[in-house]
């Protein structure tokens, strides 16, 4: 028991985590590329044409996984922040920061693919619908977090300030979601809502799951590489980093 605890703290030190991340990253890249390739093949060649939406519905295979990931990553970041604030482990903050750009990227992809879907389906690029609006706000939360961390030069301060913001944001997300939803239903009339998809084909569901897993692996791989850069940027002065790079050069 005692032993295991110590081990955990060992891996929470950047110096020991750096090589681990270096080993994990390629594995997850491979997993991601494989899964996404399978997913793409299935979404174009296996999944049948939707009788109502024609081929346009194929957007779902990137749209939905990206939407899921954007929300999921935010939760994970908040989790890391909570850990960082309670146990004072630098690595947790670094993980949160390493995830942020990828999360923002998925939020952006969700918005982009959503509006490329909305144009043929609803005839307009943008609608102020509950989900769409809360996704937009999520993107703002990501951008706010990244801007805050970037604006603070002192690393320790940036870590903690960012963590506090993330935690406040995560409390706020359900409130945002329900408020937007409720706001919308009140004077909703003309806007089309996305609900025609209840009877989802099994291959479609499978494809979507595979793509989602692929995106998930991609996020981990990206985060691992980014956390490596963050560690090196911060520990540039430390002897272990210099020894490590010195060996390679």
């Amino acid at each position, binding site marked *: 028991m005692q032993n295991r605890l110590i081990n955990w703290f060992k891996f929470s030190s950047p110096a020991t985590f750096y090589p681990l991340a270096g080993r994990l990253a390629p594995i997850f*890249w491979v997993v991601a590329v494989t899964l996404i390739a399978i997913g793409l093949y299935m979404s*174009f*060649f296996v999944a049948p044409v939707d009788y109502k939406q*024609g*081929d*346009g519905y*194929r*957007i779902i295979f*990137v*749209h939905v996984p*990206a939407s899921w990931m954007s929300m999921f990553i935010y939760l994970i970041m908040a989790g890391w922040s909570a850990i960082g604030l309670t146990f004072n482990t630098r690595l947790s903050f670094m993980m949160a920061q390493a995830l942020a*750009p*990828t999360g923002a*990227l998925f939020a*952006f*992809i969700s918005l*982009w*693919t959503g509006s*490329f*879907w909305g*144009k*043929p389906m609803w005839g307009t690029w943008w609608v102020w619908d509950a989900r769409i609006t809360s996704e937009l706000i999520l993107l703002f939360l990501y951008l706010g977090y990244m801007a805050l961390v970037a604006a603070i030069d002192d690393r320790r301060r940036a870590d903690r300030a960012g963590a506090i913001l993330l935690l406040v944001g995560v409390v706020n997300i359900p409130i945002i979601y329900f408020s937007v939803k409720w706001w919308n239903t009140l004077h909703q009339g003309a806007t089309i809502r996305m609900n025609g998809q209840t009877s989802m084909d099994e291959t479609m569901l499978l494809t979507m799951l595979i793509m989602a897993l692929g995106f998930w692996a*991609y996020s981990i*791989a*990206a985060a691992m*590489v*980014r956390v*490596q*850069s963050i560690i*090196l*940027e911060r520990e*540039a*002065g430390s002897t272990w*980093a*210099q020894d490590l*790079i*010195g060996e*390679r*050069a």
Partner: protein
Amino acid sequence: MSFLDALDMGKYALYVWGSFGVTALCMIIEPLLLRGRLDKARRRIARLNRMESNEQ
């Protein structure tokens, strides 16, 4: 269904390829940027190393 048939999205081509294309672009560019950032960090440390060994 032939390969080309599968890729022809009919009147949805712009939208489907617009979505998949941008997604692919993003997910290709991000790893490249990441690579660049990591290399830059490594080069910086190597430079610091050299500077230090020059001083001694």
